[in-house]
């Protein structure tokens, strides 16, 4: 037994949990998320799989799988995701170090700014990047990045750097500095310290960041559609094209199955690799970040922060500039135009309606995601172990499943009684909540797990019933995490494009949908309006991020 904390050293599994959920409450906490998951995720995705292989389609699944074009798409999807992931890690690691290990004025702001692109709608990022290329003259002549693979890679890096900074930086910040210092004192060079001490400790975080980034890039939709244009085809965009433009559901379904199989394989392999890589010792000493002391350190931090922010924020600056550019001068004409419906029929409603739609939808989606994700988190941490495992794994799957497959599935599965939701105003928020639930759980589960069991025991001994313990101990401690989770769910909903593209009714577009439609029409004024819409959405998103940051301040790990 450990001398220091005898009360803690009892084998964990055998200890009674004093917020343990048993009986009907436990059943409810588990049943609601399970039902939600079954109806709005498993059933639709299952329908897609069934549709792919039921033999009713015009195309035989075998012919799709036998087509070399299919495998070219698979190959392209995979390697662009792999290269994007490597580039993102390379770009994110220095920034993770700068933010996690160094204290400098404006650090909180830098952390928030790095987060901005991640929570921004992919369509906005894509539009901003394309505009930036044309503004910098990189869309023709000797250098043409527009609609190139480079554009996709750059967009993916900008979008995902935050994942590396948050996940790896979160670990890095709680990695005990004294481990590195004692290695240095023992005579290790900086390089040896990195190889022998720092890197092995960061490995699990690197794995998990790389997995997340790869999944995002593998199933990326808005970025490829907007930045890559019709020339760049990934599984995700092809599923969408076959389903919506060619109405060839069978081919779309087969492609979705291929994608699903690859994602599941990847997730299983990666979680196995991650488990063997986990080294938890030496964490949680919560060392303070220090001000850079040597001139060299200062220069490093300044350069890293400067370059990172420039790459992330220049496209946004160009977006703002373009939204204000009218003819040869500047003005607010594009913003004023948002209140009018365009006669040429790009949208059936004034663009500003899309903002309202987005906000209403996001509030609804956030509410659903919080309830489902919150209950599921409690069930995962305090419920029976088997149910916990099923929920933990099950509700994380949407994170790796393509939004397009989900939207497509809901479209073809929930279209007949008793579940005919095609015209329901709640179908879009529900689909967005399915995407948002994993984010809620990622924020809440670690916090719930981190609540010291002895705090619950102390409360129980002082006379608090299990329900009271949850209310008095768990809830106040997890409240910050819930606020952050709400922020994430809200941002995810605002930017959700893949599923919404299938499900939003033409007269109720959300902002990303409206932007995509406006961008697809010729005419400088429509482009300007799209930019203005993007700026409005960006402002809302930034406010969201600032709220998340506030909520997370003082938390040890989290992203």
């Amino acid at each position, binding site marked *: *037994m*450990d*001398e*220091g*904390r*005898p*009360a803690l050293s*009892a*084998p964990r*599994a*055998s*200890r*009674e949990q*004093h917020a343990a959920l048993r009986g009907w409450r436990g059943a409810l906490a588990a049943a609601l998320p399970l039902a939600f998951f079954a109806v709005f995720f498993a059933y639709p995705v299952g329908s897609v799989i069934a549709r792919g292989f039921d033999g009713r389609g015009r195309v035989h699944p075998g012919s799709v799988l036998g087509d070399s074009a299919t495998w070219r798409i698979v190959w392209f999807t995979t390697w662009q995701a792999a290269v994007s992931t490597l580039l993102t890690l390379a770009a994110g690691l220095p920034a993770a170090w700068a933010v996690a290990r160094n204290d400098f004025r404006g650090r909180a702001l830098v952390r928030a700014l790095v987060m901005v692109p991640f929570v921004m709608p992919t369509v906005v990022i894509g539009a901003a990047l394309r505009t930036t290329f044309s503004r910098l003259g990189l869309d023709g002549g000797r250098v043409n990045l527009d609609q190139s693979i480079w554009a996709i890679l750059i967009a993916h890096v900008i979008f995902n750097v935050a994942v590396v900074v948050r996940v790896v930086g979160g670990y890095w910040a709680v990695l005990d500095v004294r481990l590195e210092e004692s290695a240095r004192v023992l005579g290790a060079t900086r390089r040896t310290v990195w190889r022998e001490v720092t890197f092995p400790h960061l490995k699990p975080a690197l794995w998990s960041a790389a997995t997340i980034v790869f999944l995002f890039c593998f199933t990326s939709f808005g970025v490829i559609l907007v930045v890559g244009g019709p020339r760049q085809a990934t599984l995700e965009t092809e599923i969408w094209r076959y389903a919506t433009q060619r109405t060839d559901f069978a081919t779309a379904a087969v492609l979705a199955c291929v994608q699903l199989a690859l994602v599941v394989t990847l997730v299983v392999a990666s979680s196995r690799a991650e488990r063997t890589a986990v080294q938890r010792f030496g964490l949680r000493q919560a060392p303070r970040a220090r001000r850079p002391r040597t001139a060299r350190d200062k220069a490093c931090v300044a350069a890293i922060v400067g370059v990172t922010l420039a790459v992330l924020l220049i496209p946004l600056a160009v977006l703002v500039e373009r939204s204000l550019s009218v003819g040869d001068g500047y003005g607010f004409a594009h913003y004023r135009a948002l209140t009018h419906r365009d006669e040429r029929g790009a949208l059936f409603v004034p663009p500003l309606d899309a903002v309202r739609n987005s906000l209403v939808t996001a509030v609804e989606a956030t509410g659903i995601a919080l309830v489902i994700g919150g209950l599921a988190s409690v069930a995962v941490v305090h419920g029976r172990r088997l149910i916990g495992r099923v929920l933990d794994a099950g509700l994380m799957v949407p994170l790796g499943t393509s939004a397009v497959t989900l939207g497509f599935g809901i479209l073809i599965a929930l279209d007949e009684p008793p579940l005919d939701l095609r015209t329901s105003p709640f179908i879009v928020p529900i689909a967005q909540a399915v995407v948002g639930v994993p984010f809620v759980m990622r924020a809440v589960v670690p916090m719930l797990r981190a609540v*010291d069991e*002895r*705090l619950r*025991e*102390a*409360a*129980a*001994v*002082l*006379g*608090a*019933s*299990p329900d*009271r313990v949850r209310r*008095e*101990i768990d809830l*106040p*401690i997890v409240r910050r995490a819930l606020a952050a989770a709400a922020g994430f769910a809200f941002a995810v909903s605002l930017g959700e494009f893949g599923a919404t593209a299938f499900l939003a009714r033409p007269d109720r577009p959300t902002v990303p949908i409206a932007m995509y439609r406006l961008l697809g029409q010729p005419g400088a004024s429509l482009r300007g309006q799209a930019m203005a819409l993007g700026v409005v959405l960006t402002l809302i998103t930034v406010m969201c991020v600032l709220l998340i940051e506030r909520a997370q301040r003082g938390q040890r790990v989290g992203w």
Partner: protein
Amino acid sequence: MPVHPGLEIDDLVVRYGGVTAVEGVTLAVAPGEIVAVIGPSGCGKSSLLRAVAGLEPLHRGAIRWAGADLATVAVHQREFGLMFQDHVLFPHRDVGENVAFGLRMQRSGGREQKVRVSEVLALVGLSGFERRRVDELSGGEAQRVALARALAPRPRLLMLDEPLGSLDRSLRERLAVDIRTTVRELGVAALHVTHDQDEAFTVADRVAVMRGGWIERADSPDALWRDPRTEFVARFLGHRDVLPVAVATRLGCPVGASPDDGLVLLPGALTVDPNGPIVARVIEARFGSVAVWAELAVDGIDAPMMVTASHGSPDAAAILALVPGATTTLNLRSELTSPVQLEP
């Protein structure tokens, strides 16, 4: 049979999976009595405490309060207080809210709570600390707040799990006295778990020594100290010199016990005496904070023997005069020895 008015632990067994942590412990604590459970780490003392609190399921046996079995009484209904090793104060609440927590659970009124909180804070010497944040407290203050929090709801039984384990020595000694005074004043039954025998002796009326899941011996500190009865208890209490009876007899210490048994030499049993019968070679002599002491090698005994004397005594002067490597003679005072059962 009359009903025991306080806590009764009856043939208690606690298991984690296949591992038995507590193996048939029987122990009673009367109201107003402070019982300390001591033992090396891993002996099951914390598990015993957790089982009494209701935090561990019982494998066998019973825990009763005033004759009533607590098997079906949940943790939060037992009206026991528990003070953890590193205080486990609620980080999201201030000192006053921490102390008031148990009172709120009892649904006592706001005014009453306020009065009681300031009362117990005064009791532990922290008057006016109500609005302090718990992360601003020093280690000793946090332990006092934890004690106040455990005492505030007027528990029937106060349990202390290594309450001073994480504090430095001087603070530990002072707080141990404070805990005893406070608990005595309230006349509450208390069960105190620690691995430190000094702390146990300071705080408790009765001390139970645990070993491998069961209680080897339970008695008053004085009786335990002077008559540990087994080599394990003697050594755990800090007695260094335990000799087989045969050796003791050879040293000129006549004992009535059977020759298989041993003899524990209490501090002061050996003295430096020019006329003593035991010849010893001096290894070293040292000046300690409580006493002076010397280690000496005696023929026929493997471990070095210890001679101690309190500062200022004539014996102390004799010890400090010893020169390492020199030979001296010792006397053994048989009234400061006690027969013990040797470890196999």
